[in-house]
């Protein structure tokens, strides 16, 4: 504990050196700007700037790349809230309530809460990372295939009914998502499924393309002839960004719960930030006293998932650093950047390159402070975006979506995927189906399947494995309870309705 504090102090010393601070700022600024553009996530931002680091010293290079990483994440929230464009897939959930808030003229408050929630959650995540990492690593190792499957199942059961409106339609959309997720090479057998002979489909459907198609393009296609402006009725000023005391009070408990969800999931490798933010949202909706407000601009629906994805991202560095193995593609790219510098990732990194490791941790915090300072003046610029007439803004957004999606894999095929999902999404929306469960099924389905089959492979086909292991059993019981409760609610509602109908 004491040693951790001493090391952390040393790290702050490294991170505030003017040269390092400058690169950290450059990273945050570039990341923030790129993150706002639809489709341009941290992955493309980091790959573009990677060659620049070849000639740089390791510490500033890594501070800059890490700055891009969380700068882009924060920028992604701005696009999701103001334009309904989730450039970073975890923000697809933020769209659900953030965009309605913008339409009600409360976009500024949503951005303010996002900023507070992400700063709070990131600070919490960093604290956990510094003091509790050995404990969390141990906990992470107790999660085998059976446990991961049970969690995914819980996510599917909880999320399937997450959509507002008809639960049946929500379940139907989850299944559409599962089918979309089944496209691609099966991990267990290497067989390519539903590719229709197109080699591009053997890699799965691209997550970014799916999210931008369903949320960005579909919404555009639906509302193209209906909206004249978003901006004129909103009249946003810098002052509007500051949430009132009541709003802060309302947002704080969801923020705290979201942070905890993110922290728990952060310790588990293989669960991405998208799943985490979905689960935080579903949890908030479950325990809310007025779940009908969700999807119509509920502040909790913005605060909880934003907090979850930020704390998850910070805590994610624990498996990355302590096991030397990247948690996702962006982490892999960051470790690749380390290797260019001749620094081998792995547990020995902490002892051999203490300046880099502790400097990085300190820079997480400094970077988050920089982000807050940076966005106070910049938020005015983001809000001006809303004043741009719809007929000019959305064609531009479409252009950036196409460029952004193309840039992730240099693939024109994926731009086509955006269009297909945009059209399909518009049709679903016209028929009053919610789109979020598609994304949920797509993300959770393949993980659930993979771990289900792996668990059975290891238990030699014994289904009991899901109920014998205590952690798995707990999640299974939660799933069953959820389904039973749902049925009881439905039955009692039906009886209530009949009684209402019987009495005049």
């Amino acid at each position: 504990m004491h040693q951790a504090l001493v090391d952390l102090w040393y790290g702050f010393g490294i991170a505030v050196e003017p040269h390092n601070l400058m690169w950290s700022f450059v990273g945050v600024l570039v990341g923030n700007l790129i993150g706002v553009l639809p489709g341009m996530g941290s992955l493309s931002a980091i790959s573009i700037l990677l060659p620049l680091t070849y000639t740089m010293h390791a510490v500033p290079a890594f501070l800059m790349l890490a700055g891009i990483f969380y700068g882009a994440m924060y920028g992604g929230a701005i696009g999701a809230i103001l334009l309904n464009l989730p450039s970073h897939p975890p923000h697809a959930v933020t769209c659900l309530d953030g965009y309605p808030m913008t339409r009600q003229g409360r976009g500024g408050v949503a951005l303010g809460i996002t900023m507070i929630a992400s700063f709070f959650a990131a600070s919490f995540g960093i604290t956990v990372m510094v003091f509790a990492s050995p404990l969390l690593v141990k906990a992470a190792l107790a999660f085998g295939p059976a446990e991961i499957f049970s969690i995914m199942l819980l996510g599917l059961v909880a999320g399937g009914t997450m959509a507002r409106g008809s639960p049946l339609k929500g379940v139907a959309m989850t299944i559409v998502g599962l089918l979309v997720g089944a496209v691609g090479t099966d991990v267990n057998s290497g067989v390519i499924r539903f590719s229709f002979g197109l080699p591009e489909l053997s890699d799965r459907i691209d997550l970014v393309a799916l999210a931008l198609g369903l949320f960005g393009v579909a919404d555009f296609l639906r509302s193209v002839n209906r909206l004249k402006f978003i901006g004129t009725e909103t009249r946003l000023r810098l002052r509007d960004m500051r949430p009132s005391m009541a709003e802060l009070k309302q947002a704080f408990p969801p923020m705290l719960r979201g942070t905890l969800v993110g922290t728990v999931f952060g310790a588990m490798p293989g669960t991405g930030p998208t799943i985490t933010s979905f689960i935080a949202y579903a949890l908030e909706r479950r325990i809310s006293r007025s779940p009908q407000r969700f999807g119509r601009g509920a502040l909790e629906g913005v605060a909880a998932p934003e907090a979850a994805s930020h704390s998850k991202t910070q805590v994610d560095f624990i498996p990355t650093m302590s096991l030397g193995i990247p948690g996702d593609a962006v982490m892999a790219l960051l470790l690749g950047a380390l290797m260019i510098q001749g620094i081998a990732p792995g547990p020995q990194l902490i002892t051999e390159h203490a300046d880099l490791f502790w400097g990085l941790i300190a820079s997480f915090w400094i970077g988050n402070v920089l982000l807050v300072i940076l966005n106070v003046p910049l938020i005015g610029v983001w809000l001006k975006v809303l004043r741009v007439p719809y007929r000019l803004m959305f064609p531009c957004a479409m252009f950036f979506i196409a460029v952004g999606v193309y840039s992730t894999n240099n693939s024109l095929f994926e731009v086509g995927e955006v269009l297909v999902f945009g059209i399909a999404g518009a049709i679903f929306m016209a028929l009053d189906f919610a789109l979020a469960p598609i994304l949920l099924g797509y993300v959770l389905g393949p993980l659930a399947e993979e771990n289900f089959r792996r668990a059975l492979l290891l238990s030699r086909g014994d289904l009991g494995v899901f109920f014998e292991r205590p952690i798995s059993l707990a999640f299974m019981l939660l799933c069953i309870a959820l389904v039973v409760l749902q049925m009881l609610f439905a039955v009692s509602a039906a009886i209530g309705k009949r009684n209402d109908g019987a009495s005049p």
Partner: protein
Amino acid sequence: MNTMVHPKRVVAFAVVSLVGLAAALPVRAESYPDHPITIAVPFTAGGTTDLITRALTDAMGAAMHASFVVVNWTGAAGAVGTARVAKARPDGYTVGMLPVGPLTSQPYIQHLSYSPESFKYVCLVYSDPQALVVRKNSPFETVKQVVDYAREHPGKLTFATTGAGTIPHLGMVEFAADAGINLVHVPYQGEANILTNLLGGFVDSMVAHPAFVESNPDSLRAIAVMAPKRMPEYPNLPTFAEAGYPVNATVWGGLAVPKDTPEPVVEKLESACRTATSSGSYVARLKNQRMPQAYMGSKEFTAFVLSQYQQTGKLLKSAGMLK
């Protein structure tokens, strides 16, 4: 006056027609390269193959006084980019950095527009043998102990790889067939997920390259490497061959061009590649990445790819994975 042709126009016309002529003419090997060469990597930027390619092109650029542009054409386990290289104009200005998977496995697994015969092979530049890896506290120390245990407990011992039909998987298929044992294959997506389950005790072993063990010295231990002889970087790591099972599972890659590329162009590239792979800066950068260096010239590499292609076909057939 009007009929007089402006001298500037004559020049412009001449330039335009010359450029057109140059494009129509077959590649002139003497002047090659006179503009930047595109090197296509079928995997993402920042990955292992990409990093090696960037190190190589820096060194080759110095060797042949040319500039290289690295592009990443990703998709379908490398098959999309490889197919694009096969279809590129055979003028030596599109060169592929093609790894083992898309060349020798994917043509068996997917329906593709290319085969290993669609290329002329320039040079092999890296070769990374795979090793059987266990937890540090695992009871297994030698290949013999693994075989003995598996004989006594058939279908009990599990090994994890990064997917069915990958080089690590096929290496173990070959080993199990050689030793006459029955092992359970548990495929994963990515080494991160394998590592947590290996350390958590859910699987018994995994296949990975020795540098992976070197990055996790406190938790992992390599038993033996699937290479014909010991690696100079790891002289204390025995081979499967020493235990009597001559298994060879190596992840390799090298430069290749479309098959109609003129021979002199291939020779120029090959000689630049030879100079580059022995240059100090390249060797140092590969060392930083813990990637074992290797080199094969055009002739040797061609024969190697074709024999590996045959071998992989046999193994995929015995794993029941032919399309």
